[in-house]
């Protein structure tokens, strides 16, 4: 990584870790862990449905996109709003060298606390193959974090209301509609991420083979996730090239 990209990466990390944002981020990331510890203390029985609801519904369909939204949407939107983006846009580098370090910084901030929380939660919840399931779950958080932050960072370049749009998307589509209407998992980042995880560890993700919770095939899921990441980042670069920086 060159000196400018490294500088932008570190700058993005510093911009993202305000005390309030970190508090919200850690609180949300800790929810799965708190539930897992509480269920252990209460000696609760995790059946298959409860486990899948915990992993898929809570962590991948809601927690991951919500945390990604909180971190990634302001990555460009805040800089456009407070006009500090000028400092980066007057750097002697291509626009992708601005967008990629910022996206990676956001993805790291999303993934690290949630991956740790998910890793420990899966260890506590699963009896069989708990360690490998926990590693795969943490890997899934990293994959999903990159896809979601790419999308939300782009949305932050086109509207100052990225968070509002994102909340509707996370709760309306990812958490609700995509799990209720058959076929919509094909256009869900969570759905495609879960498909990859199911391929890697069928104990961790045990989705039905038909109905609204049926996951897309693995080949499709990989292509879909790569497409989301690539198209979102290309769109961000295009937007940075086109925009008038105030």
């Amino acid at each position: 990584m060159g000196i400018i990209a490294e500088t932008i990466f570190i700058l993005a990390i510093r911009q993202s870790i305000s005390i309030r944002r970190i508090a919200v981020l850690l609180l949300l990331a800790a929810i799965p862990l708190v539930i897992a510890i509480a269920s252990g203390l209460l000696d609760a029985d995790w059946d298959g449905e409860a486990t899948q609801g915990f992993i898929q519904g809570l962590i991948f369909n809601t927690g991951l996109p919500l945390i990604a939204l909180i971190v990634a949407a302001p990555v460009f939107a805040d800089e456009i709003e407070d006009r500090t983006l000028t400092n980066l846009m007057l750097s002697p580098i291509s626009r992708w060298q601005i967008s990629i370090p910022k996206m990676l910084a956001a993805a790291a901030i999303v993934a690290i606390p949630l991956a740790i929380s998910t890793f420990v939660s899966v260890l506590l919840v699963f009896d069989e193959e708990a360690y490998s399931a926990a590693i795969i779950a943490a890997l899934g958080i990293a994959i999903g974090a990159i896809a979601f932050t790419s999308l939300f960072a782009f949305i932050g370049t086109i509207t100052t209301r990225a968070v509002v749009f994102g909340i509707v998307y996370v709760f309306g589509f990812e958490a609700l509609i995509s799990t209720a209407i058959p076929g919509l998992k094909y256009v869900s980042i969570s759905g495609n991420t879960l498909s990859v995880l199911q391929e890697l560890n069928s104990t961790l993700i045990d989705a039905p083979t038909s109905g609204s919770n049926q996951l897309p095939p693995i080949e499709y899921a990989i292509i879909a996730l790569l497409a989301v990441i690539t198209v979102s980042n290309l769109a961000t670069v295009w937007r940075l090239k086109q925009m008038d920086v105030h």
Partner: protein
Amino acid sequence: MQSHTEIDTRNGNGAIVSLDSVSKWFGNVVAVSDITLKIGSGITGLLGPNGAGKTTLLRMMCGLYSTSEGSVRLLGTDPRTDHDVYKRIGIMTENESAYEFMTGLEFVRLSARLKDLRREEAHLRAAIERVDMSFALDRKISTYSRGMRQRIRLAAALVGDPELLILDEPLNGADPTQRLRFQEILHQTAEEGRSVIISSHILEEVEEVSESVVLVVNGKLAAQGDFHAIRAALDDRPYHVKIECSDPKQLGGELAKLPAVQSVQFDPDGSIVVLTTNVAVLQLDLPVLAQHNDIRLTRIQPIDDSLESVFSYLVEG
């Protein structure tokens, strides 16, 4: 507004900024309309009333805004596509675009790194010293006054010794001492062979540092060049010349007889204010007239050969 008065500012070194039929509109609002100009080396003032389009013009020069029509060349390249040009330029935008959570030193260091410069700490501190901000370099920018923010942003623009400085309303929030210091820095920069484009709506600021100006009014180029030359080109506007002498009454009477003199007024302070359509003829006739009438001239001062008068003639018509 007067018709467009164009005098080339280039000093024979070629244009550092060149705009060809540039327009910019935001929705239905035309911010800049069909401006063609070339700016040469040295210090050039970009002048105009608030809302005239100066900032839009500067932002297009810097590549921060696209043009709706026309093309921009900055140091020979298009800044929207050739970002390498930013290594050679220090830019201070109008808004206070500094990171609040950083210290002054961190901000200047960031600016150096964003230009791909691995500067020694001493070099960064020297840039800060140059704008008299050493006393606050370790303080967070959020604690700075507006004038301090401007100065630390100027230090950030200066770091790396850019060959061109582009400064948009740099003296906003600066006190008189800081303004003087700022003028010194601009003169030093010019003496070092570097160029400066400075925008302002305060005429005195620009008049102190540059005689080469670009006047923008209502998004259009009203005039360009040496402001004394622009003033001379406005030959339909008579000059006011203030004269102090040993016998104002007699000299006033003699001056009134000259064809080049339109009117003579006596000021309460004992001086004469002459309105003339031909200041050059007056300059030749006046000493002869004084000598012939045994009058001692103590002061001759053109009182509207200033940027302010040029500006008001062009803006107010």
